């Protein structure tokens, strides 16, 4: 096992644009909004950046190809810019590029910036796009809700959970995230909802109703990373360091092989085990203080509690209903509103999750600040479909945690 990334890289500064339907703004403005906040937080200027990573998933309908749009928008000093795309896990992928560059010594200070401009498509939800020549012939485009809804039907069958119990648990997930999002000035959706609203909402993809689905937003988020030594030399006292960064990518076993029962994300289980090992976490349920997970749909968040080895398989729905993941629960999940309410500008989401964990660890989260000071925070960023996906996990924490 490689030694890993633990404590080799510190976050120097972070920024996040307000997420939402940013009708008045181009992607460039969103990038600049996130970047100027991060630059001010880091206390550096553009000339000090050695390399940059840009994440965007639907480049064809917003900024176009290559790393050039980032270099142009931020007027970078002709530094290397790498554009990454890994479905909805692209944001964490950009972060990983920047962190690895610093850890390798190739860069002293690196930037990761994720952006997505989705509200230029003319319709709600994610844009319809090809998934490659072969997939277009034998695969199903469907919709994101349709792909993730299958988690719910398989989960019911696998664990003998009734539709009514599961719908109630899924509704709790969404009600909780709306409560949290209401306290977040940068969130896309800031309205509180009640459980009946969720249960009576129109069906999008059986059994997922409207409020089981996250918002699709415009937005950008970014991180500036460096070594702990350089961070201290730049005057930073309380450091948030990277404890683990893991990615697990499906090799087709779930979709084409046999043995996967459809009720969980196999990659998340693998990535979580690797991440805890890298971070030195022995008992995640007692050691992880805060979670930002990929709640593209309520059912995704629910089964992710199991896949992260926090809840036992088949019991995540009970932990949800017990309030374990509420803002005042044992391990808050989506204390910023999550994808559900903060919003989901695809390429930015992984970085937005790390942004929230960073703020919470430093006690800078304002009205939504966790009462018990967190020391270790996990983010989980999932791209693709349950049956074929990219699962990315980042654990960040206080330097001495």
């Amino acid at each position: 096992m490689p030694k890993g990334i633990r404590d080799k890289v510190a976050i120097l500064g972070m920024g996040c644009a307000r997420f939402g339907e940013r009708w008045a703004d181009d992607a460039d403005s969103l990038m600049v909004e996130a970047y100027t906040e991060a630059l001010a937080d880091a206390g550096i200027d553009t000339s000090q950046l050695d390399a940059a990573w840009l994440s965007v998933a639907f480049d064809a309908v917003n900024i176009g190809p290559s790393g050039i749009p980032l270099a142009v928008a931020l007027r970078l000093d002709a530094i290397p810019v790498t554009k990454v795309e890994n479905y909805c896990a692209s944001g964490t992928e950009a972060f990983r590029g920047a962190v690895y560059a610093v850890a390798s010594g190739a860069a002293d200070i690196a930037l990761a910036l994720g952006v997505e401009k989705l509200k230029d498509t003319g319709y709600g939800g994610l844009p319809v796009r090809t998934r490659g020549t072969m997939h277009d012939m034998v695969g199903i485009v469907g919709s994101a809700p349709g792909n993730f809804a299958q988690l719910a039907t398989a989960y019911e069958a696998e664990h003998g959970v009734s539709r009514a119990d599961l719908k109630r648990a899924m509704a709790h997930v969404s009600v909780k995230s709306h409560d949290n999002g209401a306290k977040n000035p940068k969130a896309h959706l800031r309205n509180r909802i009640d459980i009946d609203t969720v249960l009576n909402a129109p069906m999008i993809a059986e059994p997922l109703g409207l409020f089981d689905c996250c918002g699709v937003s415009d937005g950008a988020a970014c991180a500036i990373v460096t070594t702990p030594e350089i961070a201290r030399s730049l005057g930073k006292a309380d450091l948030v360091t990277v404890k683990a960064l893991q990615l697990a990518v499906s090799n087709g076993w779930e979709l084409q092989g046999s043995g996967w029962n459809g009720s969980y994300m196999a990659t998340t289980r693998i990535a979580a085990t690797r991440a805890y090992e890298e971070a030195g976490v022995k008992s995640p349920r007692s050691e992880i203080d805060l979670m930002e997970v990929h709640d593209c749909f309520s059912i995704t968040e629910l089964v992710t509690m199991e896949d992260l080895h926090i809840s036992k398989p088949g019991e995540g729905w009970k932990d949800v209903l017990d309030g374990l993941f509420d803002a005042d629960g044992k391990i808050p999940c989506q204390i910023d509103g999550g994808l559900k309410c903060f919003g989901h500008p695809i390429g930015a989401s992984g970085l937005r999750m790390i942004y929230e964990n960073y703020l919470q660890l430093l006690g800078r989260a304002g009205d939504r600040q966790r009462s018990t000071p967190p020391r270790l925070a996990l983010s989980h960023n999932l791209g693709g479909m349950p049956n074929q996906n990219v699962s990315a996990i980042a654990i960040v924490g206080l330097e001495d945690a």
Partner: protein
Amino acid sequence: MSIIGITAFGAYIPMLRLQRSAIHAANSWFAPGLRGLARGERAMANWDEDAITMAVEAARDGLGQRPRAPLSAILFASTSAPFADRQNAGIVKEALNLPDSIAALDAGGGLKAGTSALLLALQGASAGPRLVVAAEKRKARPASESEMLQGDGAACLLVGTGAASGDLVAHFIGHHSVTADFIDHFRQSGADFDYGWEARWIREEGHGKLALDALKSGLQALGVSPERITHFIGPAARGVPEMLAKKAGIRPEAVRDTLSTTVGDTGAAHPLLLLAHCLETAQAGDIIALLSFGQGVDLLLFEATGKGAKPRLGVSGHLARRRAETNYLKALSFTGALALDRGMRAEADMKQPLTALWRNRRTVLGLVGGRCTKTGTVQFPRSDISVNPNDHAVGTQEDYPLADIPARVLSFTADSLAFSPDPPQQYGTIDFEGGGRMMAEFTDVAPGEVSVGQLMRMVFRIKNSDEKRGFTRYFWKAAPASKEES
């Protein structure tokens, strides 16, 4: 000496049956005169069915599990073939996973096409078994008589030789054909709808003279006296088979039901569909006279053996496998007569790279997966490196056809967001018995009909269409299998 005849037969009738009362209810303000036709139901292709997909299903119905490799030719007959220039029979051949070394022919141009293809196949049967498929999904103008009278469907006849008549379902006695440019209706190339002439003229001059003369002289030439006919299959026009039988001296009880109240007239496929229906119950020694009408006449005579292969469902099974459809607007939308607002999600470009389709034609059109010769792992699609997590063997896979293997649902959804011509789009992950898994679209499925563990049967359907360039893309979908089918 070998005997030529029919060795197997099958049929396909789409599950949906549009109620003629619903057609009339919507159109009575405009065409009250159609009331007299507003009885019973007509078979209605699902949005993802056309003459090719129905021909494939009819062929599967007739061929069953028998080996397909010995087939020497495939003939496809239709006046509503999806492609004017891309051999339709060739697509059926790929879907049936027949070997490449096979002759093929598309027959069309008139409603005799089905019987003419059958005749051609019979005449060459000594060269090897030949598969004849006929299918029709004709368009009819809303509020027309044709809309009431027509139906969608397909039939299949396998012809070949037998050492004794017991190897055959029916042996071929002979035929009599007449060709004459009697234009009861016509449709120019590329046009959507038929233009028809006065029914009284067709009945008196067409059926009453042209067809009757052909029937009489045919029977005489073949040396079969009319009273020996056990089953007479005539044109699907009201009262016409009865009239022909009476005037030709065929016993009235020999006249076969034309399925006009249950299926409707399936055009070039109809004589073959009715023949397949007749063969289900024909007894040894029964003489079957099959007469088709369309710019002339084909008369074919068969003697049933009362033996031989039975279809998987046949006409009877398909008649029973039905779902009444009362939504006339849905029917119009399915045929393209009514352009509903499909929304921006329907705008995606469906361009098919033809190079990729050629490379993957067995995978896409034949639903052929891979089986690792080392570990036995079955997968779809096949790949250079096995999906087996315990042995990623390289280059070990052989073709493994999945189309006829039952599958069970692992997970499913009914998706109201994704575009579908028949929302919600239903799909899920399915596991094939004996290995292999795929995410498949579901078709012929009612909301709430699918559950985890449900048994499914694969069917060949339209996946989508590239409307910009005029190209239909086909693939396989999963449909709920009835208990009889399992």
